[in-house]
């Protein structure tokens, strides 16, 4: 029997342009979550930790980050087996050439595809030596006839998985083909388990330990893997390690009351400073309610770690033309009608012109209000 922790894709040092000014916070959170993974290994009393590639985002990340990661890994109470992935392959000048890796006791870098005896099992590591490759990295493994529990450690794209590339392809039944009880893999940031019907041998993506962007379905986890014996099905348990909460909201505003509900939702968020929200506003909102929305957005941007709003699909209700009737006849009335027509015409193609025309209309509304005050 063997119990271990499977993690991958820490992507330390990754760029986070999509998080605008919060990128340093997002990067720091990944280190914090890495420490959380080590802590979890201690709590779970696992025999070892497998890191299935892409520990680092790139070979040229800041050298201090390498030292910080090494320090976190070295704090592990159990051995850590590190696999070079496609983002951090074993290449000259890569992160693995840093001197820090030579001085660690608990951390072992998988430098070659050769079986390795680990606590309670035989480990078949498949390190990557380049950023791109079209060969199955597990093809060398032949563990069918081995009596001990056999575990593979690899990094690649499961064929037919919803990935946008096919680097280092892995067959869906790679674990079965190689005769492995479990194949720990990395590359895809969401947790995913691949079982082959009527055959022992499971392959799984643990997913990244900390979500990297909006839209990742099931990331921010590690897997605790329990293999009772050679040939027995592994028992997998998903444990959340992510610090940050990335949420994508589609908010539909239909009545004046919806805006209040939306405001309450934001006000009642738990730990908003660890939350990143991407919010698409749709529906109808009267011009007179726009200032209130602006206030809510401002409040959200103050309280949340990151709040991105897209209101291009939010339009004024048809009855909202009422204020246009109040515009003095003449230049202003004609101007407002023309801008309204431009906003509607351009809005059909969701172009920038529509946004500008609508903003101009709002500006006219504001100036009118100021003038009448």
């Amino acid at each position, binding site marked *: 029997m063997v119990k271990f922790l499977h993690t991958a894709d820490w992507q330390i*040092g*990754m*760029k*986070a*342009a*999509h*998080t*605008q*000014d919060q*990128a340093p916070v997002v990067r720091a959170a990944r280190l914090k979550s890495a420490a959380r993974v080590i802590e979890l290994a201690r709590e779970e009393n696992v025999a070892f930790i497998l890191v299935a590639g892409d520990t680092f*985002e*790139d*070979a*040229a*990340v*800041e*050298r201090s*980050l390498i030292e910080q990661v090494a320090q976190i890994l070295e704090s592990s109470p159990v051995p850590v087996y590190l696999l070079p992935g496609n983002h951090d392959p074993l*290449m*000259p*000048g*890569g992160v693995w050439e840093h001197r820090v890796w030579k001085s660690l006791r608990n951390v072992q870098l998988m430098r070659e595809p050769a079986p390795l005896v680990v606590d309670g099992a035989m480990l078949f590591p498949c390190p990557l030596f380049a*950023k791109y490759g079209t060969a199955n990295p597990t093809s060398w493994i032949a563990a069918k006839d081995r009596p001990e529990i056999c575990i593979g450690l690899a990094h690649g794209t499961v064929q037919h998985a919803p990935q946008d590339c096919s680097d280092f392809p892995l067959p869906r039944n790679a674990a079965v083909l190689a005769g492995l009880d479990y194949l720990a893999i990395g590359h895809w940031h969401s947790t995913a388990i691949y079982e082959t019907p009527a055959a022992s041998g499971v392959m799984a993506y643990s997913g990244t330990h900390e979500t990297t962007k909006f839209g990742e379905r099931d990331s921010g986890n590690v897997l605790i893997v329990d293999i009772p014996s050679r040939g027995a099905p592994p028992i997998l348990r998903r444990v959340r390690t992510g610090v940050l909460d990335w949420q994508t909201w589609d908010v539909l505003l239909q009545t004046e009351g919806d805006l209040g509900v939306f405001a309450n939702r934001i006000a009642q968020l738990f730990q908003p400073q660890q939350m990143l929200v991407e919010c698409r506003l749709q529906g109808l909102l009267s011009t007179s309610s726009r200032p209130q929305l602006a206030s809510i957005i401002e409040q959200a941007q103050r309280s949340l770690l990151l709040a991105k709003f897209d209101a291009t699909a939010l339009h004024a209700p048809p009855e909202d033309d009422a204020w246009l009737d109040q515009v*003095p006849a*003449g*230049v*202003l009335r*004609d*101007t407002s009608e*023309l*801008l309204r027509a431009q906003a509607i015409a351009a809005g059909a193609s969701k172009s*920038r012109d529509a*946004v*500008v*025309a609508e*903003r*101009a209309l*709002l*500006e*006219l509304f504001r*100036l*009118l209000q*100021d*003038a*009448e005050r």
Partner: protein
Amino acid sequence: MMIRSIRLSSWKTFAHPVELTELAPGINVIHGENGAGKSTVVGALVRAAFENHSSDSESTRSLAPWGRSLGPSVQLEVDVGASRYRVEKQFLVQKRAALLRFDKQVWEPIAEGKLADQKIRELFQGDAGEKTTSSPQHWGISQLLWAPQQQLAVTHVSASTIDSLRSSLESQMADPTTAAVQKACDTIYSKSFSPTGKLKSGANAPAVVGFENELAAVQAEATTFRAKLASYDELSQRIQRFREAQSRSQGELKQLRDRQAALSSTVDRYVTLLAQKQQQESAVKLASTEFKQIEATILAIQQCRQQLAIQREQLSAAEAKLPVIEQQMNDAQASEVKLSEKLRLARDERVKASDAGQSHVDAATYLRLEQSCRDQQQAIDEASAADARVRELTKQLAELPQPEAKSIDELDRQLRQLEQLEMQLESSLVRLEVTAEQSIDVEAITADDLAGKQLAAGETQIWRGSPQVAIRLPGIATLRVRGPATSAADLRVKIAALQQTAGELEAKLGSRNPTSLRASAEHAANVVREIASTKSKLQSLLRGDSLANAQTALARDQAAAKAILAKYPEWSSSVPDPKQLEQTWLESKQKLDREIIEIEAQHRSSVQLSSQLKQQLAVLESEKKTLASSLESKTQELAKLVADGTTDAVRETRKEDLMLAWALAKKQLADATQQLEDLGTDPRGELATIDQKVSMLSSEERQIENDLLVATTQLESLASESVYSRLAQCEERAASLESRIEEERIKLDAIKLLRQTMQQQQAQMLRTLAAPIASRALDILRRIGLSKVSSLAIGDNFLLRGVVPEQLSAEVETSVLSSGEQEQVHLSIRLAMAQLVAKSERQVLVLDDVLVATDARRLAAIKTILRELSEQFQILLLTCHADRYADMAEAKLFDLPILAKAHSYAGG
């Protein structure tokens, strides 16, 4: 506003003060002939209202009347609303400006100097500012109300006046809210945009400019880091390749070095065996040489002894044959000498015969020269005669007159014409023939001959003349005879002209008689033809050469004939026969040739025999010498061969011993060769190749190591820069900036769009507002009676763009209209605009001689309109046709010359 009085002093033509007082609030007609000073009054009005008193411009300086030192001054009194003002300005000398208000029966100063200039301009609603304002574009609304002479058309409307027009037009439609929104929008816009619509820069630049600048810098930095990151990857791959190459190189080197070690021992064994083989080869060679040497010595001794015997026999035979051949050669040489002498004699004879053969050639030449000299002499004689004839004829021709046929014909034609004219003259003359019955005096009054005549009784005298002849018989009568209308004078002129040209031709031709002139011309032509014919003959005789050359050739031939005759004097008495001479010479020559050929053949045989014998003798002597020499050398050779001091038997024994030693050496060499063959091919070549490869690979390995070191150093340097992390920071900052820029841009674009849309709408509205001006002007035109214009096109700048004639639907330029119609169109527009800008306040309308081309009917209509307008305007009409406005009873008339004169008297 209403002008109450205008007073000018020292102003252009008005050296003395002139004053127009108590101007009517309605129509005022100020008249005077051209140069009376009407436009001067208008000019003074303009300067009083708009010009700075301190102006020193050229036009201002031109205001001063000639010879006056006083500064030109103007004074106006005007009513504005309920107040009365006085405007005073003096230019050039003691410059001053003052604005006063009549308050409580006293003129109170309001402003003086520059301030007064400014206040006065405001009073007249002119443009603010201190610049010169003499140009209509600075007159404010007065540029529409005041039309100086020849400037009726409105050609420029200043921005302030357009504003005034617009405000007047918009006043019905604009409201405070719109104005406030527009102003607020303008304020927001102007915070970020310059007047040209570009984003502001520098300290006042909007935030987006700063963001964009920062973005550009960040993007540039990111580009640098991307390049470095690419270098990082490239270096990494390069190092990987170096490492692989190094590994391969090291593997190959190891294999080569192993092979190198194995080959070295093989090469050692090979070299040893090779040395042994070479040693045996030397032994075989030595044994072989020694055996062959002794064998050759024995053979040479035998051969030498045989050759000595043969050569001795040959020498004896040669010595016996030598005297016989010497005798034969002497005989042959004696015969050769005799034949040579005989041949020489025969050849001398042939030379003599050859000289004799020249006589028949000389005889033929002599005869040819004799004939030639005779022919040439005859030709030269004829040619000399022809040459003399040509010279004679040429001289004759030079002396002969040679009139041209064309000139003769012209003279003939003119003489005939002259004759005809003289006949016509004669027939055109009136003749008065008087036959006196008693002695009378006759005075010719009109006749060709005006000399007085005294006719005796019975004497007849004829007077000619044309067209009449008149004579007076004193105390009796005056007789006048008129003839036909033919003009004898014309004929005389023609005759005189013809006589002159005929005279000129006569002078040129030398005669007036065409017949004799034609005979002269014919004679000259005959002489010319004879000259040509004689010259042709001369050329034929001399065959194109000159006479002198012909004479020279004759002399040369005569000399040649004389020379031949000197050689053969007998030919002077008897003529030689060249054919006979030639026959004799040929026969003699053939006989001699045959003899010489025969002697030559005998001589050649003798020479040949002698030569053969000589050669035989030489060969024989040479053989004798050779044999003697060979005998000597063979004897010496034999002595050397047998000089070893042994016998032939001893030599034979030695030969057999050496043959056995040679066989043994060959056996040992075969053994050594077999051992080498057992080792295979020569291993030294392969070893050398491997040594070379090892050296090359070692060098390559060192190079790879160096390259690896360089690349690793570079990579480490890049790694220390954390290029990925730095790039990530740049891209994150860029994304953040792009987001902010887009937000800011949308805000700015929105305000720009709002302002632009408002301006467009405003412009659109103004275009519709300009329509009433056109409509009002068109109404005025209809009332004037100009119906051919169906509409007027007025542009955004409120200027007339064109007219649309009734027949056409298209817009055309006003130049298609007559001058009168053009001034009526311009007047209509000016009046329409004036009504708009005047609003409810009374304004002054000045029209300086603007209706100069308008007919009386339309002028009457215009006067009616002006009467109506006088309810709203004070009208100053300046004209030089006072009578045209005499029917305007309500108008106040000002006779400018009278006013000027009155003040002049007052001043005087």
